[in-house]
């Protein structure tokens, strides 16, 4: 997001404003108060005597609270302002704002304080894709409150604005006629409640009013407990401590509450993806397992609850398939978008099984694995029956919904991501290589669960046999001997899509590559064509579609590099893993300790700083999780039975790294690593 916007969030409600605290949504500014994928405030502008106050500074130390320090403009640089203006804002069950004016003059101040408000109730898809609304907006004034509403058939949404000081309602504005004595002050508390369902209107309004104003003690306590429960990290490379803390806080901010299931799971990213995403929630939970394992449990339970049951072309739903994305906005409600939920990802199902096994290996929570056995079996059935569309033994995808479904159902889901080396797009169905890796891993991991927990040895043997066959077939079909790496995909005509991409790194994470193939892939991953010096590019500079600003064809994605680094450790390439980890962590330091979703793929030698990608989400869940997986990589943390194996390999700048109180089936334990200087 551009630097002149300020965002606070709490799960799936968030506010995006300018740096004065004003909201003025337009075709170019995605300002607003958003909740459940709907914009409940599109305008919220403070003026005093008809003038916008001037920004002095912003205190945004908590993710759910911000304070804007402003002053009444005097119109001349050499004339001091005599009026301080503070806007203290928080979000928790609606928006809460306390406006305080302090008169520093020797005489009284007579002021007209005006807040212009509006609510357009735009669905996030309408904001993103500039689509017109179809229903009817209205405004009501009743007993000291301003109510904006929207209705379309039985669908209704409302925004209710109240203030602690009596306001004069003028159209869409709240106006306060204020008289402040010399050296005195005035303040008012404003409450903006968001109401999604008419039946729960009274409860939502009451909950919003009871949210303790701008202090948010519940959120504050929850954050403190979250940080206190996480392992303690210290390092002689000081930025790592800041990056780690930032990751923990951002993960807390992205926690998404599901009313059906206790706990929270990570939403994908601010501002466009504050929703349950199968792939993103699964990968983020995997990255965070050694630190906050509870995220994984909620993610698995939630995705199990909405697992596909029937064949539904509109939603790309199939029995056993794990969901891609769940939305709550108007376009979803009227089936103008298929996200109720949408199932257009071909990898989430295998990743669900991968996380289920990894979660049990870390936590020893056999009960959850036993509880989810039916869903795990259904997921495996989907892989064999629907994931492999043509019976060739590979997972391939082609959307059932050609109007609003996703063309690419792998993590690189933009339309130009699966291209040959000469830049031509590969026809569908597409079987990307990492899908085969995830499936291989899922089969081996499920075999372990079948043998050790579900008591089904025959099924375990079957799954292991399938995995061995898949590995052999994969090498035969995907390996490009003349280039020495695995094809990005097989296209609809079973041709090898021969671009060199970061996807080959995921194969190391999954373990599907044999040793010789892995060695060759590692050489490519560490080459100048793929490794920018900050991280691994999504596509190598040598390929026809490469663009350092291409979303999936040249940018660097921190989560991608973190998965690759972990894969390198798996194959014994500790030094290379440490090099990748350091590149991403040094980039994080320059991004003020918060990694964006993606950044430009320019060579590090060309710029002193990593170059931003213009529309990257930040915070974004799996970018937030990347430093966590990199810490695991550097310390070589791997559960084995009831023990935690620690096998550190640190790059030289990170001389010493200590992680205390790592939770797991062993209770709590500590890990320590330091750079070994060769004798």
């Amino acid at each position, binding site marked *: 997001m551009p630097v002149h916007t300020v965002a606070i969030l709490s799960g799936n409600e968030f506010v995006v404003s300018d740096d004065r605290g004003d909201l003025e949504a337009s075709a170019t500014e995605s300002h607003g108060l958003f909740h459940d994928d709907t914009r409940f405030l599109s305008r919220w502008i403070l003026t005093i005597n008809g003038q916008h106050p001037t920004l002095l500074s912003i205190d945004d130390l908590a993710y759910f609270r911000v304070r804007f320090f402003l002053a009444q403009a005097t119109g001349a640089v050499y004339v001091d302002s005599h009026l301080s203006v503070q806007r203290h804002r928080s979000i928790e069950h609606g928006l809460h704002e306390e406006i305080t004016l302090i008169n520093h003059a020797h005489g009284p101040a007579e002021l007209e304080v005006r807040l212009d408000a509006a609510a357009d109730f735009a669905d996030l898809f309408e904001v993103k894709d500039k689509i017109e609304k179809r229903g009817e907006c209205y405004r009501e004034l009743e007993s000291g409150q301003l109510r904006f509403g929207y209705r379309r*058939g*039985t*669908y*209704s949404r409302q925004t209710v604005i109240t203030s602690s000081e009596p306001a004069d309602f003028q159209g869409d504005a709240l106006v306060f006629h204020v008289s402040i004595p010399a050296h005195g002050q005035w303040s008012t508390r404003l409450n903006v409640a968001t109401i999604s*369902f*008419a*039946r*729960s209107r009274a409860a939502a309004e009451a909950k919003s009013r009871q949210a303790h104003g701008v202090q948010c003690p519940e959120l504050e306590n929850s954050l403190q407990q979250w940080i206190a429960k996480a392992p303690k990290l210290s390092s002689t490379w000081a930025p790592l401590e800041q990056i780690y803390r930032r990751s923990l806080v951002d993960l807390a901010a992205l926690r998404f509450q599901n*009313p*059906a*299931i206790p706990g929270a799971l990570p939403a994908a990213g601010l501002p466009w993806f504050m929703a349950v995403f199968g792939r993103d929630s699964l990968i983020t939970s995997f990255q965070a397992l050694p630190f906050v394992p509870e995220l994984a449990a909620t993610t698995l339970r939630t995705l199990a*609850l*909405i697992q596909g*049951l*029937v064949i539904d072309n509109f*939603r790309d739903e199939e029995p056993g398939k794990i969901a891609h994305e*769940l939305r*709550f*906005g*108007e376009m*979803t*409600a*009227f*089936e103008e978008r298929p996200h*109720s*939920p949408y199932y257009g990802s071909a990898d989430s199902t295998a990743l669900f099984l991968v996380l289920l096994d990894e979660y049990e290996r870390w936590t020893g929570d056999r009960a959850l694995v036993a509880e989810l056995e*039916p869903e795990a079996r259904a997921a495996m059935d989907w892989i064999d029956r629907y994931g492999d569309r043509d019976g060739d033994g590979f997972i391939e995808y082609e959307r059932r919904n050609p109007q609003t479904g996703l063309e690419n159902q792998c993590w690189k889901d933009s339309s130009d991501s699966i291209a040959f080396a000469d830049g031509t797009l590969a026809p569908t169905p597409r079987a990307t290589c990492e899908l085969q890796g995830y499936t291989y891993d899922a089969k081996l991991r499920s075999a372990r669960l079948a043998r050790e927990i579900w008591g089904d040895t025959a099924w375990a043997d079957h799954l292991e046999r399938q995995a061995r066959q898949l590995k052999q077939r994969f090498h035969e079909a995907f390996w490009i001997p003349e280039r020495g790496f695995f094809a990005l995909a097989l296209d609809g005509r079973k041709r090898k899509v021969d671009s060199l991409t970061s996807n080959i790194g995921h194969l190391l994470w999954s373990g599907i590559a044999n040793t010789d193939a892995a060695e060759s892939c590692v050489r490519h991953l560490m080459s100048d064509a793929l490794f920018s010096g900050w991280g691994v590019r999504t596509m190598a500079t040598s390929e026809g579609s490469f663009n350092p600003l291409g979303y999936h064809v040249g940018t660097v994605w921190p989560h991608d590099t973190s998965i690759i680094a972990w894969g390198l450790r798996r194959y014994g390439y500790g030094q290379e893993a440490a090099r990748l980890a350091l590149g991403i962590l040094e980039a994080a330091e320059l991004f003020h300790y918060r990694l964006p979703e993606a950044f430009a793929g320019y060579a590090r030698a060309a710029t002193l700083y990593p170059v931003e990608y213009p529309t990257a989400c930040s915070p974004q869940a799996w970018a937030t999780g990347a430093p966590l997986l990199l810490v695991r990589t550097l310390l070589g943390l791997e559960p084995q039975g009831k023990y935690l194996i620690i096998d550190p390999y640190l790059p030289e700048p990170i001389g010493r790294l200590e992680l205390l109180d790592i939770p797991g089936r062993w209770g709590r334990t500590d890990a320590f690593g330091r750079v070994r200087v060769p004798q």
Partner: protein
Amino acid sequence: MLEIGDGAVTVKPGDGEADAVAICDSEESVAAFRRGELNPVVAILRGQLSLTGNLVFAIKVIRGLRTLTPTARGAGAAG
């Protein structure tokens, strides 16, 4: 009232205690559900369906009705 147990669903008079309650706004919505034409999430977002009680159980039952093979395990009742 639906009573679910031992892999069977039984329709009973709605006068007992239920683990979860699903309220539809109209008979047309109920009929649309039964025909598989109304998606449960869509119905909730449009205000045509509300769920209370054990939400996990309620969601499993409502979604399961689409296949006429509810996936919820263990005995329970949904009104």
